[in-house]
């Protein structure tokens, strides 16, 4: 931590910082957090974010369950998680303080809106006495700021309604944070001007609030030091900040363009997947057809209809919705039609924790259908990876004429990270042939991958019938023949297995063999990388790999597993991948499981690594 001076204030240089903005659901914390992230990213830091909001829309003011938070981790080297513990907590009211102080590091900074610490709010937050006045926060650096009154004072000439004035207090807090971290106001001001171009009072209010916050930091004696985080050394290129759901949506559009097929989405809203529907419905000029269906079953059924019709057909959902789609998924696999099912996992079972994350649905995706019904299962590892895996899921579905389930999760779907944007010409085309030649056409004929031909209605001479009853191989006639059924069950399984020939092998980070491999899948990648990096810093020798292809697994997985004495499998569930690994490879993997609705904490994984390595933690 280097130091320097600016305006008489000491400037400390930090490697990385985790900030939590917290307040009532109506306090605009998500917006504040997003603005801070954007500016930070713009400055060249790497970062990772985690919005965390209640399942109520506007929970009553001041309550503990009504607290909405936005966590942000940024730094000068690669950042992989939104941070295990926070360095700086911005708390707009007592409830926000109470809920989030648990996760603040010792000697961490608390900036709070002292105006909100009145008797009523303290009671709602179940504080017996005012924490700003008793010594319960003595382990932290506390900066009480009368944010509400300062904002009211600053905005008095903007002509805003009183309600809108107090609503602007989040911008005061944001301004103060910009000052604290030495960041410019301009990107946010520009955004405000564009967004509210027709509402001068709002522009005035936001600008004044932001600047007051900034100058408050500059001018008061409260803060002895400011912080600066050097630019990260990211690869050259054009970047933007992207959330997983947005990346999925854009990835699907890209797949549509790359394959030359029109995109059809049949979906029913469900947290945390709905944003994909929102995003896709904006892109009508890409020919995207979005159908908000009456339920999940209609969502997938309509996608099956569209797939029969020759579209790149998609359905998006989350756990309980995937459960409703199981019967129709079975139909799609029997019809051997391409279909992409995006499942944004959330805390289960049942309605569970709808706004929280969990790697809840791997087993459902693998096995949750009647009969022998293998489908391809792939997973994205980070917000921007959703873009690539959406393309990849589409490619596999189209090439093998099968349903593919893409698993993301609430954390990577809502979280954001800087993304080095690829150029279209860097993306691989998706080759698709729709059959037009009537000669020798058989609906369940097989190509070298065992895929059947895709002959879409409207094509002369290829009229044929498909359906959910068992089909005779090649001809596609309804068949109850015992041997044919046995054959078809095996063909459908083999088709999925054949994908091993086109999917990439698993890449191990670190030594290619040794004592310990940490093997994760999907959205835990960030936590695992940080944990492994940390363990290495502490002198432990540990390798790492992250699975993105689960059905089938990469070809070399068995070999990789055989090269390590021990394998830890950290999962945000009870050990679903572990089950599949044991089944397929008979290896006694070591499970690490947490079901807290939150990303795994790196330090806990590091501890586990140390434990397994026999306390080699120094």
């Amino acid at each position, binding site marked *: 931590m280097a130091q320097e001076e600016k305006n008489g204030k000491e400037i400390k240089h930090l490697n990385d910082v985790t900030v939590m903005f917290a307040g009532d659901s109506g306090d605009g914390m998500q917006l504040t957090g997003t603005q801070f992230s954007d500016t930070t990213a713009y400055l060249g830091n790497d970062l990772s974010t985690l919005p965390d909001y209640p399942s109520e829309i506007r929970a009553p003011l001041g309550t503990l369950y009504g607290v909405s938070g936005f966590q942000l981790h940024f730094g000068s080297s690669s950042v992989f998680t939104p941070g295990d513990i926070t360095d700086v907590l911005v708390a707009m009211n007592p409830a926000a303080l109470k809920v989030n102080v648990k996760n603040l590091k010792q000697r961490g900074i608390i900036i709070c809106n002292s105006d909100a610490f009145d008797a009523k709010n303290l009671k709602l937050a179940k504080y017996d006495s005012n924490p700003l006045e008793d010594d319960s926060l003595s382990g932290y650096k506390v900066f009480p700021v009368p944010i509400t009154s300062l904002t009211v004072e600053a905005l008095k000439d903007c002509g805003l309604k009183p309600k809108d004035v107090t609503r602007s207090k989040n911008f005061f807090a944001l301004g103060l944070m910009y000052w604290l971290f030495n960041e410019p106001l301009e990107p946010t001001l520009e955004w405000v001007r564009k967004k509210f171009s027709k509402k001068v009072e709002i522009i005035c209010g936001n600008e004044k609030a932001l600047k007051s916050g900034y100058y408050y930091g500059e001018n008061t004696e409260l803060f002895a030091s400011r912080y600066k985080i050097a630019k990260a050394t990211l690869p050259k290129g054009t970047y933007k900040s992207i959330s997983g759901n947005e990346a999925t949506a854009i990835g699907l559009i890209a797949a549509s363009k790359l394959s030359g097929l029109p995109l*059809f989405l049949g979906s029913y809203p469900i947290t945390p997947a709905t944003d994909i529907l929102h995003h896709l419905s904006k892109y009508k*000029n890409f020919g995207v057809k979005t159908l908000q269906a009456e339920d999940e079953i*209609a969502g997938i*059924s309509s996608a099956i*209809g569209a797939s029969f019709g020759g579209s790149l057909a998609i359905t998006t959902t989350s756990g309980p919705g995937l459960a409703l789609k199981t019967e129709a998924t079975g139909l799609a696999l029997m019809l051997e039609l391409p279909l992409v099912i995006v499942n944004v996992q959330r805390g289960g079972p049942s309605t569970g924790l709808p706004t929280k994350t969990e790697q809840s649905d791997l087993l459902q995706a693998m096995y949750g259908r009647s009969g022998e019904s293998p489908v391809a299962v792939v997973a994205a590892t980070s917000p921007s990876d959703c873009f690539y895996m959406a393309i990849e899921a589409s490619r596999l579905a189209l090439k093998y004429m099968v349903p593919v389930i893409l698993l993301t999760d609430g954390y990577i779907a809502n979280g954001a990270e800087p993304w080095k*944007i690829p150029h279209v010409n860097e993306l691989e085309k998706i080759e698709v042939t729709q059959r037009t030649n009537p000669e020798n056409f058989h609906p369940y004929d097989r190509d070298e991958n065992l895929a059947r031909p895709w002959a879409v209605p409207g094509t002369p001479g290829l009229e044929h*019938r*498909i359906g959910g009853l068992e089909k005779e191989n090649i001809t596609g006639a309804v068949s109850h023949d015992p041997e044919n059924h046995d054959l078809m069950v095996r063909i459908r399984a083999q088709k999925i297995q054949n994908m091993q020939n086109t999917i990439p092998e698993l890449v191990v980070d670190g030594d290619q063999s040794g004592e310990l491999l940490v093997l994760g899948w999907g959205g835990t990648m960030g936590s695992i990388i940080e944990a492994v990096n940390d363990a290495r810093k502490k002198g432990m020798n540990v390798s790492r790999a992250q699975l993105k292809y689960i059905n089938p697994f990469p070809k070399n997985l068995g070999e990789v597993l055989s090269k390590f004495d021990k394998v830890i499998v950290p999962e945000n569930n009870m050990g679903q991948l572990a089950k599949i690994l044991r089944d397929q490879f008979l290896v006694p993997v070591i499970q690490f499981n947490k079901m807290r609705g939150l990303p795994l904490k790196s330090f806990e994984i590091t501890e586990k690594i140390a434990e397994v390595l026999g306390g080699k933690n120094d």
Partner: protein
Amino acid sequence: MTDKIDVEEVKLTTKDFQSNQDVRWCPGCGDYSVLAQVQKVFPTLGIRKEDFVWIAGIGCSSRFPYYMDTYGLHGIHGRAPAIATGLKVARPELSVWVSTGDGDLMSIGGNHFIHACRKNIDLKIILFNNKIYGLTKGQYSPTSEKGKITKSSPYGSIDYPFNPTTLALGSEATFVARTLDRDTKHLQEMIRRAAEHKGVAFLEVYQNCVIFNDGAYSDYTDKETKPDSIIMLEHGEPLIFGKNFDKGVMLNGFNPVVVDLNDGVHSVNDLLVHDEFDESPVRAFIYSHMTDDPKMPTPIGVFRQILKPTYDQGVAAQIHDVTAKKGEGDLEALLFSGNTWEVE
């Protein structure tokens, strides 16, 4: 339906629509008649063979697609309207037909049905209403009469039935009609009318299941009883029926009543005159309830046909409009849109 039809090309016959599959319904099943009439009407519609698609759920009636030499999809129980919706929205130029049963459409598929009606998706839905579950060997269905004794209701069912046309009207269907498996001419006419309707077309076929519910409609099809039991709806004509055309239906307030045209009191001028194109759904709703009323004849024919933009057109139009305004989507531009920054 395709926008441009090359009439030269389309010279189809019944045979063109017969698939190579043996038809596997029970001998005497009413489904045969529907199949035969569809195969008669389809060649005459001016639609290319390859543009027809049949979508079905599960049930005896849902095996229909296998017997038509068109594109076809035999789906899962109850979901045919949803599958068909996706296909039609994706490919509005196709002529998309749904064959379904009273269990498939009215029981498990009820929700997709009412939503397809509400959205006015340009589907042709043919309900084979035999008032029984055929394929699963004879349980009562949502259209079975109360008190029906079946394998799952050995002491008589307790359910009140749906009247499919009532439900269709409650869901704002734009074309609602009813016909009889045994009246082949009328059946053909109704198939044609459904085909020609632009929007959701709901056609209920009273279909006899010879095995599990034989004679369910014999009152309507037997020469003897037919004239007094049904009334044929004809656009612009007064509602007359009876063996001697001596009975009519008159409105009393908004309730229909049967009057005797020979009673010296009533004449044809008193009768309700059918108007298929009445904008108000109330008239059709009245017809529909005549079905349930033992004192009234059961109406057969087109209850209602109105036109309003279809959902699939709407989707296409919106895409067209947005594209016209914004220009066709450019992936490269999309990727690089929003708040971007450079790392050197």
